């Protein structure tokens, strides 16, 4: 069936455009493609946590490169979501050191209490569960990353509840500004 109206073309917000402009000054003029990864991060934050083909085309247009050059990159790196996601994407580290400290149990527990299966989203659209490889915080295992924030030492149901409650109280914002109070414990106490 033909769609009756063409989908509106996505546009970057003025703030994002300013950030992209700043990023482009970091690389030689004839090498602006270097900014592709950071711009895809901005695009993902701007457009609901994933990059649709339309958004990727917009990125290609912004950098004056072919769409395929964006697709091959977005499909290579695990942080870019190519399908719609829930309001909060929980990236659970499952690699060796985290597994030794109970990441398998954490994943099962999260599946149970969020109603989402790994790789999927909870029925109410709040949580997407994603298993990822080593997040480089092995000494504070097990860990979950949500956007820019690390939640560490999630080896008790209480710690997991505290994380979920904090997330539920957040208004959906494109990028979480990093607040000092939000530093993971491991970075507060050396």
């Amino acid at each position, binding site marked *: 069936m033909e769609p009756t109206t063409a989908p509106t073309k996505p546009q970057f917000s003025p703030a994002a455009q300013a950030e992209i402009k700043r990023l482009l000054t*970091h690389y*030689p003029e004839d*090498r602006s*493609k*270097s*900014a*592709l*990864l*950071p711009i*895809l*991060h901005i695009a993902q934050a701007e457009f609901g946590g994933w990059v649709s083909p339309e958004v990727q085309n917009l990125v290609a247009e912004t*950098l004056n490169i072919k769409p395929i*050059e964006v697709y*091959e*990159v977005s499909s*290579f*790196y*695990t*942080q*870019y979501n190519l399908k719609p996601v829930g309001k909060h994407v929980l*990236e659970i580290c*499952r*690699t*060796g*050191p985290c*597994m*030794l*400290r109970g990441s398998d149990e954490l994943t099962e527990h999260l599946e149970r209490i969020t109603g989402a299966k790994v790789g999927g989203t909870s029925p109410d659209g709040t949580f997407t569960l994603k298993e*990822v*490889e*080593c*997040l*480089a*915080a*092995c*000494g*504070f*295992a097990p860990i979950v*990353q949500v956007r*820019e*924030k*690390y939640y560490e030492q999630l080896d008790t149901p209480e710690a997991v509840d505290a994380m979920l409650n904090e997330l539920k109280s957040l208004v959906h914002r494109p990028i979480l500004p*990093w607040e000092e109070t939000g*530093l993971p414990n*491991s*970075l507060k*106490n*050396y």
Partner: protein
Amino acid sequence: MGRKLLTEHINVEGINTFEVYRKHGGYRSVEKALKTMTPDEVVEEVKKSGLRGRGGAGFPTGMKWSFLAKPEGVPRYLVCNADESEPGTFKDRQLMSKLPHLLIEGMITGSYALGARTSYIYIRGELLYVLRILEKAIAEAYAAGFLGENILGSGYSLDLHVHPGAGAYICGEETALLESLEGKRGNPRNKPPFPAVQGLYARPTVVNNVETIAAVVPIINEGGDEYAKLGVGKSTGTKLISACGHLNKPGIYEIELGVPVEEFIYSDEYCGGIWKGRDLKAVVAGGSSVPILPKELILKTAAGENRLMTYESLSDGGFVTGTMLGSGGFIAMDETTCIVKNTWNFSRFYHHESCGQCSPCREGTGWLEKVLHRLEHGHGSMHDIDLLVSVAKQIEGNTICPLGEAAAWPVAAAVRHFRHEFEWHVTNPKEATAPGAAYRGAAVLA
């Protein structure tokens, strides 16, 4: 407690700000280098220090720097590898978030030594919050005149930028990192040409790990000879060890190279022993790619000497009875650990992270994962154990980059030292696949 060259002030309130960092002697190495030394003299000091690549390879940094091609009129680059993703390693994240100015100072001094006018810090995409900490610190350094045009009136100018990755372990390999920095997929390049000749944008480039660049600061401040006095033999200076797994006190420890492994694991000054009063079963001493060793062989070499935390002592016995210091990702496993499950987990990691351009790695890592999955879940055969060794052998040495070896070594070593555990999974599948099951019998030494 040995000297702390990098982390001495890590817990000072506000050390992440320019002002406090400066008060504690920050940026002295930049002043010293730019005002009193030629670039070649800086390289010479680093050579004298005996500093070796802290990212895992252990290649002498001064030598790497002196390989840099210097054609007239062509830009050169220093790129910092902050793509820390080796399982078990988490030192750089800590160092950058708490001491961003230390890395920036090292980058300025290093860039001056190499004659780079633009330098990049390539940080893994998961650490976007660390990127913001670094950007804030870079802005402070610009404002204070330590970055930008004509630094401290020396006539030397430098621009420094941070660039995020987006989740790919392979981008920690230097040539894949450069591809990624150019906005492409992280596929490692064939060498030669080496980055020293054709790196970023096909220009001469040096890629160094975060800790390596940070170590340049004390080396220039105190002199290479002073730095070389610390440590043992060819393992000079201090090293950050990230300890994790079944330890009472996991975390980051800056040690003077040469601390006995036993002391590192059991003394209260360091890891404080194995958690829950259990017994140690095995250790992976340098990040997931290095061979695993059973308790007996990690504490003592095959010849019965105490093992020390040095490049040489840990690799004593080659890959038969030894391992590597690698990146310093120290993973301890207690007696309840199932080695087969752990090996399967690591194999899954390498399969997931293989970039896919070389067949032996793309297919081989998948085979390893499948066979280990089979064994772990009680469907394996004795033949499978030999198959693992044979597949690992066929990956090793047949790939463009070292990810092939990184995937093969842990498997080969696990079978070498813990074959009885694999066999137990074949002979007693019911028992071995029970939740939380682990072989608790006697270890059989190779």
